């Protein structure tokens, strides 16, 4: 009896699961008519998996009515609880709760209070914005310094690795957002830049923008760094890096192209949700007018630091560079599921 080769076996499996294309189906049918080994294989496969049909004897096909009722009750009671009370109702409620007391000298008290309040407003009006602005500028500069040092690391890496960007094995269509996942098939786009930390091209603390978080993260030991294949979680990397789907094509760009920036604002909220990574869920995101305009929140939504391949780092509220390329989206893509890829090298997509 002729032995089947791997390709023939795969075609028969695809055909069995009704996942074969037209041409594959034709090949499968032909094999099943002419090839004894194929007939044997198909029959054994059918015999083995038809055992699964036994499950249907146990599984009650129809859902009990009480479950549907319970689900809808839960849904309606849940939405009723979360429906916002109208502003008018709130005001009326607050008004009815208010305790009214008679004050003997209203105008005197009012004048005193108003004078003090005016003084506070004037002083805070002068000092608060100034100090806030100074702090924001300091964080912006510190963030730029971080990116400049990472840029040096990337250049150093490229010089020693035949002009390639840091990249680990991955495939187009792999999720790019699962930061810290230890699954080999879940390759977050951050794994590529982790190579810089792992091989001492950049310090791990450089990957946290001081403007985005004031949280003190525990330092990573050398042993931890050696054992990890990605940043431990999203808090350890607040920058977005150029999406790499094919490592063998990840050449260091010849012209100045964006490589890294403050967090991509489109996915920021979704990925900050701790349940997102824990639950392995990426709720699909559809682009809206607002999402196409917002800036990274690391710098109060005023703009983002963008690192270019020539080592320059610029703070800008601009998202579109080169030939009309928005660095936070994939060209012509409206809905995002966390597995997108770009179709050309000129379409830069910085994630996660």
């Amino acid at each position, binding site marked *: 009896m002729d032995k089947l080769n791997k390709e023939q076996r795969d075609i028969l*499996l695809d055909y069995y699961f009704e996942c074969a294309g037209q041409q594959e189906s034709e090949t499968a049918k032909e094999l099943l008519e002419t090839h004894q080994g194929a007939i044997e294989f198909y029959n054994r496969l059918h015999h083995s998996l038809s055992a699964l049909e*036994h499950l249907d004897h146990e*599984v009650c096909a129809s859902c009990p009515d009480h479950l549907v009722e319970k689900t809808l009750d839960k849904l309606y009671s849940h939405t009723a609880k979360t429906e916002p009370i109208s502003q008018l109702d709130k005001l009326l409620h607050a008004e009815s709760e208010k305790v009214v007391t008679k004050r003997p000298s209203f105008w005197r008290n009012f004048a005193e209070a108003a004078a003090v309040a005016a003084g506070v407003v004037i002083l805070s009006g002068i000092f608060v914005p100034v100090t806030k602005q100074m702090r924001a500028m300091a964080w912006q500069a510190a963030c730029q310094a971080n990116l400049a040092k990472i840029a040096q690391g990337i250049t150093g890496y490229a010089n020693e690795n035949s002009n390639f960007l840091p990249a680990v094995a991955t495939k187009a269509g792999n999720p790019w957002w699962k930061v810290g996942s230890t699954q080999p098939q879940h390759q977050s786009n951050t794994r590529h830049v982790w190579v810089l930390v792992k091989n001492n091209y950049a310090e791990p603390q450089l990957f946290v923008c001081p403007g985005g978080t004031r949280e003190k993260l525990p330092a990573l030991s050398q042993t931890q760094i050696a054992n990890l294949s990605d940043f431990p979680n999203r808090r350890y990397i607040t920058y977005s890096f150029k999406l790499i789907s094919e490592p063998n094509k990840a050449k260091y760009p010849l012209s100045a192209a964006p490589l890294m920036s403050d967090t991509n604002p489109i996915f920021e909220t979704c990925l900050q949700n701790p349940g997102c990574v824990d639950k392995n869920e990426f709720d699909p995101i559809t682009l809206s007018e607002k999402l196409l305009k917002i800036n990274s929140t690391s710098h109060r939504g005023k703009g983002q630091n963008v690192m270019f391949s020539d080592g320059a780092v610029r703070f800008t509220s601009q998202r579109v560079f080169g030939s009309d390329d928005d660095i936070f989206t994939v060209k012509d893509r409206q809905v995002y599921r966390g597995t997108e890829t770009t179709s050309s090298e000129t379409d830069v997509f910085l994630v996660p």
Partner: protein
Amino acid sequence: MKTGKNHNNHKDRTDEQELLHRYVAGDRDAFQQLVTRYKDPLYAFLRRFLNQTQLVEEAFQETFLQLYRSRKTFEKDRPLRPWLFTIAANKARDTLRKLQRRDTISLGAMAEPEDLNVDDVLNSLKSYEITPYDEAEKAERAEKVRKIIENMPENLKEILILAYFEQFSYKQMADMLSIPIGTVKSRLHTAIVHFTKKWKSLNNEII
């Protein structure tokens, strides 16, 4: 293989489109009709996956609640079924993990791809003649299959149920599980090998 894929006809699709538009707009009546439409297949899917009434009911409710909550992110022009089953599979996985944490027992870890040849495993079956079973035998076999499925690694169980019972295409499963199509195929092959080996070892005297 279960008979035939679920191909909705044109009228069904149009009806569903209209329901989906109303559901996205927050129409409860439309949502209720969607629940009625999908309650049975979803319930059967969760029964196969979780196999305990209480867990199934929890996951069932959570799935529809999530479906309602995330209606604004749903693309109206796409079919609902793969999206609904994506949510259901996630909820089922969560339920199993919660149970695992609570009971601190292993309920089936994620399996790494096995480099096993489907052909060899299938060839090791002594016979593939299908013999008629009486009712007692059927019940006994059903119990064995249920046990194998219950103890299967989570990712293999999931792919086998989605491919065999729900008959999703490779592309749909790849989207649902956020994995490349190649991984769907290799995982499904591993699941077949796993199931066949277990089935064989449980029925060594018969097959």
